[in-house]
């Protein structure tokens, strides 16, 4: 090795290799579908999702909305119920 260089252990983490499968989108139309609204509990997130939901209802007949506010991962049980009772879910992320 050259005198003016030294060897160090790379301090950066190696990301865990992970591949997950996305839920399939089975429906060609949202007509009659149950749309979950998953809110991150930040200001306006619920209102914004509700607006999106109402706009979808105006575009697709018999579309129903199920809103749920998410606190943290520690209360993730509710997410399973939401997944079971919805055809598709819209999630709000960030501020």
């Amino acid at each position, binding site marked *: 090795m050259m005198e003016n260089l*030294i*060897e*160090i252990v790379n*301090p*950066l983490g190696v*990301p865990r290799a992970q591949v997950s499968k996305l839920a399939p*989108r089975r429906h060609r139309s949202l007509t009659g579908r149950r749309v979950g609204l998953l809110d991150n509990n930040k200001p306006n997130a619920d209102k914004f999702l509700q607006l999106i939901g109402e*706009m979808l209802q105006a575009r697709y007949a018999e579309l129903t909305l199920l809103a749920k506010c998410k*606190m943290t991962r520690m209360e993730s049980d509710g997410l399973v119920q939401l997944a079971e009772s919805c055809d598709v879910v*819209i999630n709000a992320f960030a501020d």
Partner: protein
Amino acid sequence: MVSSEFWTLALAESQARGVKDLPLIKVPHPVGTISLEALHAVAESVVDAIAGKLMRGSDSTSAGNRMASQQDEGSAAASLTVPNDPAEMFSFFCDRGWTDGLPVLPPTLAAVQKMIAAGGNKPDVVLGIIPPLNGVATVEKVAANAVMAGCLPNYFPLVLAAVRAMARPGYNLDGVQTTTGNIAPLAIVNGPCRNQLAINYGANVLGQGWRANATIGRAIRFVMTNIGGARPGSFDKSTVGQPAKYTFCFAENEEASPWQPLHVERGLARERDTVHMFGASGVYSAVDMASQSATGLLKTYSLTMTGGLASGVTSTEVLWVICPEHAAILERDGFSKDKLRVELFARARIPYDNIADENLALLAKRRPLWFKSGALREIGVVDRPEDIWLVVAGGAGAKSAYIPGRTGTRMQTAAVEGFD
């Protein structure tokens, strides 16, 4: 739906979780502080794109979702060569965002080996996965960061315990790493190692001047930044941050405490070395040089706990660092830790009228306990007395410190392995 400020973070997280084709829609930041009218316009602009993403045959591959991971550059290489000249080496680390802005020691192979040997674990043992990039915290990677931070090898078992604790789900490290809040990881140390390693628990306990306190806390920060990839401004989204994000570690003054130390309350033997990881959102000074009774101190403490929205209503758990002189008064007046918790819980309340309407509406969702019918029109600092943690630390003087926590983060305790 992701606001624009969080777009690159969302892409990186979806990649780290193995769903790089997650259908994402970008909306302009901010969302939280705009009017209903403005919100309506934003919703109109994205609703059809959202509908498209929800249906079969949509553009699910989202080419835009693909991005090179921030860690890609050189992260796979086990070792690197860096300039030997101290100033050039420091610049090398700074330029890559691998430090906190202060000089570091080079994690040479020999120095890292020494650190690993002191930890008593093999280099490839995995302590946890560090978000947001889900970096694998192996003993070797943590050792490299501990060397950089300036740790002595015999501090290393404490750093390992801290990393184990903070990687547990209850700490909610995803949130701690990427929040716009100012949360800092705080390591509290109990047990005989406090004296053996000279970890400060006396005068200036939360301040500067002790190598163990400074470098153990700093090593934890480097693990978060370098292994987890939470660099400030990119994936660490803290709006203003706080100085404790450089380093925050102290020990309990067990010798001066009239009560059981924290690790014994947590079910460990008194002689067991222990690290607790708390999520600290600031240090509030509770100056009370005049009160001569517990009655007076209770007033001062509850006033401190309700001194603002951040100190008052946004923490799942909170922490008191009680100075020995205050602790002696409280004990003399018949206060156990449990009694103190109950009294503080009963007194530290914020009336609805002191809180802005918009915040009250948000709190009704986040803290529903305080909005049940028939409830008094006030909000407690936490939901239960047992969410108030109490430790005794500091030197002479009548000044304690209140440290609020974070929504959704609970203190995690880990026994130190392999220290003797």
